[in-house]
């Protein structure tokens, strides 16, 4: 019977409490600490230790990289002890744990979205918080992640040469992320998709699509006059104009 086992079996919650604090503060064994904290939480609720236990338990799980669990515990903390001096930190840590739990941009981003919303709420509530800069950092980083995901998803259609889908997806991206760093490239890709789609199209639809190239190009030039994609885009623009003129002549 190990020492930990003995503590676990102890009937006196104070023994567990002291041992858990020891594991937490001195030994940094967050797993063992969290096991003990979890056991005494129903008993200490309403006692002066209750607040501390809840807070430490959340941190134990955070340090153990169980970010989703930790976020739930931090949430429980600030919902229970809303006026505690640690509530601010708990709210921040709730959002931060969600942020930490979110995987790479090419995987499910539900928790990123939750994290961003939570951080925004945090900033609204504590505009002068000492965590302010970090919170803003997290929001920006999450925004970038979502942007990256959005762009890559739209770009995949371009890569797979489904230009029709690419136009829809890239246009959606423009609407969803109007100040993205990928915007210049997105504008260019829309022109390129439209142009390639026109090339593949049957004659009756070609004219419309070449006109689309011209319209999108104008928008692009006005917005990014010094773009590195300009020369490529210009070529497609010139080509499209020529095709349009030629068809006009044919119709005359």
């Amino acid at each position, binding site marked *: 019977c190990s020492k930990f086992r003995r503590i676990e079996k102890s009937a006196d919650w104070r023994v567990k409490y002291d041992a858990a604090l020891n594991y937490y503060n001195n030994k940094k064994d967050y797993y063992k600490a969290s096991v003990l904290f979890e056991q005494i939480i129903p008993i200490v609720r309403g006692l002066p230790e209750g607040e501390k236990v809840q807070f430490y338990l959340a941190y134990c799980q955070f340090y153990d990289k169980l970010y989703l669990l930790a976020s739930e515990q931090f949430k429980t903390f600030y919902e229970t002890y*809303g006026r505690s001096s640690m509530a601010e930190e708990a709210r921040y840590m709730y959002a931060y744990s969600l942020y930490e739990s979110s995987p790479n941009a090419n995987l499910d981003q539900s928790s990123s979205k939750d994290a961003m919303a939570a951080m925004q709420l945090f900033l609204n509530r504590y505009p002068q918080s000492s965590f302010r800069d970090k919170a803003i950092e997290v929001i920006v980083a999450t925004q970038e992640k979502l942007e990256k995901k959005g762009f890559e998803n739209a770009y995949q259609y371009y890569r797979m040469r489904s230009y029709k*889908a690419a136009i829809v997806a890239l246009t959606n991206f423009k609407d969803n992320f109007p100040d993205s760093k990928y915007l210049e490239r997105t504008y260019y890709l829309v022109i390129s998709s439209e142009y390639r789609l026109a090339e593949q199209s049957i004659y009756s639809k070609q004219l419309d699509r070449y006109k689309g190239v011209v319209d999108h190009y104008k928008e692009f030039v006005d917005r990014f006059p010094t773009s590195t994609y300009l020369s490529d885009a210009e070529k497609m623009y010139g080509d499209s104009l020529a095709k349009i003129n030629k068809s006009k002549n044919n119709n005359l």
Partner: protein
Amino acid sequence: QFRGRRSGTATNAPGENNLNYANPAEYTIGGIEVTGLNVLDKNAMVSLTGLKVGDKIKIPGDAISSAIRSLWKHGLVGDVTIKVDRIEGQTVFLNITLSERPRLTGFYFTGISKSQESGLKDDLKLIRGKIVTETMIRNTETGVKKYFIKKGFLNTAVKITQQRDTLNRDGIKLKIAVNPKSKVKINHISFVGNEAMSDAVLKKKLKKTHERPRFALHRTILNSVVNLKPKEFIDSSYKVSPKQLKEFFSQNVKLNIFAGSKFIKTDYEEDKKKLLAYYNTKGYRDAEIVSDSIYSHSENTINIDFVISEGPKYYFRNIIWTGNYIYTDKQLSAVLGINKGDVFNRELIDKKLQFNPKGLDISGLYMDDGYLFFQIHPVEVAVAGDSIDIEMRINEGEQATINEVTITGNQRTSDHVIRRELSTVPGQKFRRSDIIRTQQRLGQLGYFAPDKIGQNLVPNPAKGTVDIEWQVEEQSNDQVELSGGWGGYYGFVGTLGLTFNNFSLRNIPHLKNWKPLPVGDGQRLSLRMQANGRSFQSYSFSFTEPWLGGRKPHSLSVSYVRSLSRYAGAGATSYNDLNSGIKADNISVGLGRMLEWPDNYFTLTNSLSYAVYSLKNINYGLGCTTCKSYAVTFNTTISRNSIDNQMYPSSGSSVSLSLTLTPPYSAFNGLDYTTATAEQKNKWQEYHKWMFDAKYYLPLDSKKKLVLEAKAHFGFLGAYNKEKTGIGPFERFVLGGSGLAGGFNSFVLGKEIIGLRGYQDNQITPPTYAVGNSTSQQGGVVYEKLGLELRYPVTTGNAATIYGLVFTEAGNNWGTYENFNPFSMYKSAGFGARIFMPAFGLIGLNWAYGFDPVPLGSRGPVSGSQFHFTIGQQIR
């Protein structure tokens, strides 16, 4: 509750402290006192209220009542009173009076068994250390009752007593005294008023409410004999109709002892609905249960009497379509498939309109075309006598275009791996068939639980678009193969195989993303080791990227195989002196792609391989016993696969034609083949090999369960220049047995192994060998195999696919083209089973009887009764 101190108002000046509900005033909290505490902490309690010294609150106001509520919410205290202690100017001092509640320190049951107790404990969720409340006790009581009622103990009595815990201050123990009494069973169910349906039919419709089993025939007969009324039974004067006979038996006999006869209220209510639903499907639209009385028959049995009013039987008359512009009345009626005069059945209409599991339905017709906002309302417009006219009011709406497509739930698999499989593409018209197809394709990937793949459609009628969110849930589909077996000559053979079906090369350097391996890019990595110590070893590695470049499904695969077998050959000093052997190394790179022409079932694969065979002290027909032989081969395979289900194919076919070529060295190496040594001749292998495989699946019943598989296989091995080189010993065909290249009976290297059940592994070889090289080589240059297999599945669920089969097959191979005679074949027949489980792959066991004797006496009996064990999908 909030109590302003009346006494305070009385003593103070009236204008100073007038708490008025009509006129709340704002105060600053100057202090909070808590009284009535015993164990609980003052500050903790104050922090739970959400009030704080220095807060500005309105009195009377929300803050106080929400403080009381949040104290109660935690269930720590029984009574809460917040009083205004005193008011000094704009500052208020509050006093919270609490009464603490005892905590639960333990509970125990009386009157029930240990097993019931443990089942109950899971159900009840009594947590020690919680505050004991009325609700907790009530919930426990109903919880216990529910638990027993579910098991048929309808009269369960529960009594909960609170007992002071002598060990713990403020603790309470609960004594839960349970008396389940006896089970209540249904003795008899009777019906009154049913004319169209017999009692027995109606009883059958009560799916979960059954009578208890009985056999009272003997009693009835005995009764009539004792009462001297045998005439009733042996009276030939009147004819007993089959219906009467049935009634008689249903009165006296109920033999199904497996159907429980417990009375469970919720099931009973469900069953009543089912009874009416059954009447409705038979045209009795007005059927109702006038009354159902449940009364006790004996102490622990009850009877149920139904009084039923059936009402008239209705029929369909006219079906009128309105609002349809895209499809004509005739087209819609054809899909609906209901004719004038058919028995009225509301359920049938709903099925044919909304979701028909067996074929087309009306919404499907529209949805498939993108009419996502389509609506249909069947309205009974006229009821004349027993005929009903129905008007189908249709609102076709606009054709929806797919706008955004998102994916959620993919914790391991990258977006692009999923997205490339989606048939729902932005900018396309919405079609339900695309949804179904996508669902199938995502399921086939194997990365997701197939029954958890869902989609959330968010239509936007204003824009005429729909957003689709694909919801997935990851599952593991890596395979581990760990097996050991006794393999004839080689003794014990162990196998370790690992297949990762969702590997990611890209993620290898990013340790953070390992879960627990680098996953998510849909690549396939497979490692396999097979060995029995020194005499046989085989190592293989293969890697496949299914979408090279991410643009189109062009696959790249790289593989490396090294195998060696050693044995005691000529000149060996003992059985353990493994002085002979053959070692083969093979590396190959292949590119595959789907073709769009002639149709999209075609695939084309090209691969390049390099193989080295090292011989040591072995006569392999090369003319040298210790030397090396090399092969550079190019293979191209064109195949068409339209099989509907990989695990249990029930329809479709697969055809494949493959050609393997080596460079024609003899044409340009300048070697004089008349004088060259055998070693020189065989240094670079030279052949061309043609393989043809075809399988066809024919479902024999409507559910596509009983399936016939027909297959035909041919192979030809040839030389470019027969005069110079002849056909070498490599890549020849060997038939017989399970067809496993690494079968337990022999590990033959450099041969094409083809299974033929009913004969021993690899024993069907031509009796006379090719001229020119050597007389000890084995294997034919032409082979043929035909087979028929009849399969029936036991289960085709997600957890496992199991099916049984009977088969007959025939095959042979020939050493020269002159001897080739497609009608002389070795025939066999037998039966077996296949089991597929995701973690282990496909395993098969067959028994077969080989009918034809093999004309090589020295090899012993190789035909007759044989067992065969197989692993993995057999190609041939």
